[in-house]
């Protein structure tokens, strides 16, 4: 029996997983805020646009890591493969998010002339189905976020990954980063109601982080339980300061602390905006670190 570090996927893929999750969750949460909270359209459109941007960059990282990126078109061949579904989700995501965001862009006076150049018919259609597009984008975003976890959890010989806890963890982490990102953006909103949204996001993020911590606890408990590659991976992670202090400390606990403080003690005071920006940024960094180190700690368990 030997345990061998996977040497196949590196930081490029971690970046892809991170940006994919972030982009997916941002649209999902953003659309919800739009539909149910009537959030600042400017901010939401900015969020969706950046989310699309994240997804594009993430995809570029994925492609750049391939031997033959031009052949990526073949990726739609085998429906048994998670990447197949990833491609499907990402494409739907792109279509729906773009369709969804265009009408929203009108809230930016400077973009107005640009948008109005689009054929009226299309614009009208987009307006009409804006809710559906939002829903589609949100669903696709959610699926993309969960797919990133499913993709790597399907490796049978990397027992640390090969568990349903991983997609769960990734999806919660993705939503946490999405919430954090929106939180960041909303602190810049000049709209009236935005502050309430900031508070909601803060609560959401805190809840997500708590859930993430619970999943992590269960996850590591499981990993340490069996003498498999998973234990090897878990101990690698625990011996990695950047994981323990960086991800767990700065990426989860500190933002949670800040958010708790802000929820319970400062009463979401506007003056704590700086703290919120800090918390949000930390969550984002933490999200990346989590993926980076989980990939890094992937250990094959070979039978020799």
């Amino acid at each position, binding site marked *: 029996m030997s345990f*061998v570090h*996977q040497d*196949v*996927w590196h930081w490029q893929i971690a970046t892809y997983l991170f940006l994919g999750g972030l982009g997916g969750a941002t649209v999902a949460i953003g659309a919800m805020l739009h539909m149910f909270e009537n959030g600042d359209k400017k901010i939401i459109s900015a969020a969706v646009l950046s989310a699309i941007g994240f997804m594009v960059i993430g995809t570029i990282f*994925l492609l750049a*890591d*391939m*031997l*033959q*990126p*031009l*052949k*990526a078109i*073949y*990726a*739609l*061949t*085998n429906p*048994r*493969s*998670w*990447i*197949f579904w990833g*491609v499907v989700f990402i494409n739907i995501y792109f279509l729906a998010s773009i369709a969804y965001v265009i009408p929203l862009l009108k809230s930016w006076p400077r973009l107005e002339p640009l948008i109005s150049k689009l054929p009226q018919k299309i614009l009208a259609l987009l307006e009409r189905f804006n809710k559906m597009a939002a829903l589609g984008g949100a669903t696709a975003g959610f699926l993309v976020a969960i797919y990133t976890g499913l*993709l*790597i959890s*399907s*490796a*049978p*010989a*990397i027992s640390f990954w090969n568990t349903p806890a991983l997609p769960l963890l990734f999806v919660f982490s993705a939503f946490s980063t999405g919430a954090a990102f929106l939180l960041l953006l909303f602190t810049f909103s000049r709209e009236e109601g935005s502050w309430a949204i900031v508070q909601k996001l803060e609560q959401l993020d805190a809840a997500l982080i708590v859930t993430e911590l619970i999943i992590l606890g269960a996850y590591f408990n499981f990993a340490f339980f069996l003498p498999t590659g998973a234990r090897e991976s878990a101990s690698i992670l625990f011996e990695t300061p950047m994981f323990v202090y960086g991800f767990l400390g700065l990426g989860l606990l500190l933002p949670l602390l800040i958010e708790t403080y802000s929820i319970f003690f400062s009463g979401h005071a506007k003056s704590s905006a700086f703290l919120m920006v800090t918390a949000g940024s930390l969550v984002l960094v933490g999200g990346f670190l989590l993926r980076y180190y989980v990939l890094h700690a*992937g250990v*094959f*368990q*070979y*039978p*020799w």
Partner: protein
Amino acid sequence: MARYGMVMDMRLCVGCQACMAACSMENQTPYWNGKFRTHVEDIEHGSYPDVRREFLPRLCMHCENTPCLSACPSGATYKTEDGIIRINYDRCMGCYACSIACPYDARYPYDRNDVSTAETLYGDDLSHRAPHVDKCSFCEHRVQEGLKPGCAGTCPTNARIFGDLDDPQSEVHKLSKTGKAKPLRPELGTAPKVFYIPS
């Protein structure tokens, strides 16, 4: 239609690595970068004086339930009628999903760097020019000509036994059926077609 498989008789393998050399020459694998389709593990068990040295030759297990094939989005990884798991070099986009999915470390990237060295080494005889992920093909090209795979053909101790698992006359059938030869990590459910007789 056959169902090809291999039995590794670990009682016989002497760790001479002729199989690796043969495979590399046969299939033009980028040995210069240390990449091989087959490996021979040199394993030490126990402590002196109760120590046992064991050689474990390994290659693609041509799994019946094929995680690499499931993972491959492009269909580049496919199964032939004879149950051989192969890679269509023209389709492979090199996304490594298969490498991550393979529980037996059977795959490696044949990258641009390898191709350019291979071009100088083999000239117009180079058999694959596009980068792709590569692995053992069970030497299908030889098998179709009625030859043993390169590695099994040269193995000085006949530690590698190749044949049709469905043919009741074949040695591989007998060894795998009687349970004398067992697959690696059966609990993964991959149903490998490479079996091991322990030493």
